[in-house]
């Protein structure tokens, strides 16, 4: 039974990783914001789903796969360092909030916070790597786009979790208890 659950979890994680990668690649084709580097970050919907449905390690694995493979697929290996560092910091924030003993913030607010942190870290890492402070002029724009992206991701994730019956993934009683 344990093996079957492990297989189910790996299968679900694979599906979420595939979804996150597809969205990451498609988002690279256009931008809803006229700000360099700004994206809605819809791939993070899958990271939040992995954190909630599966666990912290799975959420981290998804972010690593999304950042590394996503940047390689889009032909931009140089961006791995920005995407990965920002992704890991923001998913750690989300995990700490989601796994808190009692509800501190709603998932929507957590997502907004994570998106803003993601953009701050990405901008800071870029300034460090490029050796210039000039890119800090983008910070106010990135904070605002982070709020818009975070709201979109948060509301979408909440709706998906609300509408998806838990039995769709975890029909086994032992899994329900586990968390």
């Amino acid at each position, binding site marked *: 039974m344990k093996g079957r659950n492990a297989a189910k979890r790996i299968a679900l994680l694979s599906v979420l990783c595939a979804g996150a990668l597809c969205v990451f690649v498609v988002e*690279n*084709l*256009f*931008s809803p914001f*006229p*700000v*360099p*580097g700004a994206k809605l970050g819809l791939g993070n919907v899958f990271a939040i789903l992995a*954190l*909630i*449905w599966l666990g912290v390690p799975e959420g981290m694995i998804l972010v690593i796969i999304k950042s590394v493979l996503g940047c390689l697929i*889009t*032909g*931009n290996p*140089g*961006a791995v360092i*920005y995407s990965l560092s920002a992704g890991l910091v923001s998913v750690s924030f989300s995990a700490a909030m*989601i*796994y808190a003993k009692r*509800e*501190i*913030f*709603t*998932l*929507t*607010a957590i997502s*907004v*916070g994570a998106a*803003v942190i993601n953009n*701050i870290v990405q901008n800071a890492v*870029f300034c460090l790597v*490029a*050796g*210039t*402070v*000039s*890119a*800090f*002029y983008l*910070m*106010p724009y990135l*904070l*605002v786009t982070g*709020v818009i992206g975070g709201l979109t991701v*948060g*509301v979408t994730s*909440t709706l998906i*979790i*609300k509408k998806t019956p*838990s039995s769709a993934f975890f029909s086994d009683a032992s899994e*329900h*208890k*586990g*968390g």
Partner: protein
Amino acid sequence: MNDRISRVKNGKFFIKRDILLYAVILIAVIAAVTVLILAQDKGELEKIEIYYDKILIYVYDNSLKNGIITEAGKKYVTEKSEGNELRVVVTVPEGYNVIVFDGEGAKVTEADCSVRADCVNFSGKITKSGDAIFCVPHSLSVVGVGTEGEEVLL
């Protein structure tokens, strides 16, 4: 059903405590805008410098309206005058960027860095000192420098 899922399923999109987080973000936005307004050097444009991987490869003198390819930049940079404009092509191992200097400033007009090409489509034009255009995939920076000195920390 585990705690996390039931918390979201039975929860709302907004609770009063969220205001705290949104307030912190609002303060951060206000602080960033204030710093941007106060600290940004938006003086007269003296020079425009192009860096590849933190190495200065090209300097355009905005008052003399001509540019100099640095020693390090010789293998990456070619320039060509077209009417009133100077067209500089930077070809690095990662790809190429075309930067056009028109006497008032500089703009990246072409690049093969990505489909979105943020450096071309979303980065505007350098017309003041402190303005900058970055091409992350090509590790390229185009920075406006004023009389106060350069902005790049090298």
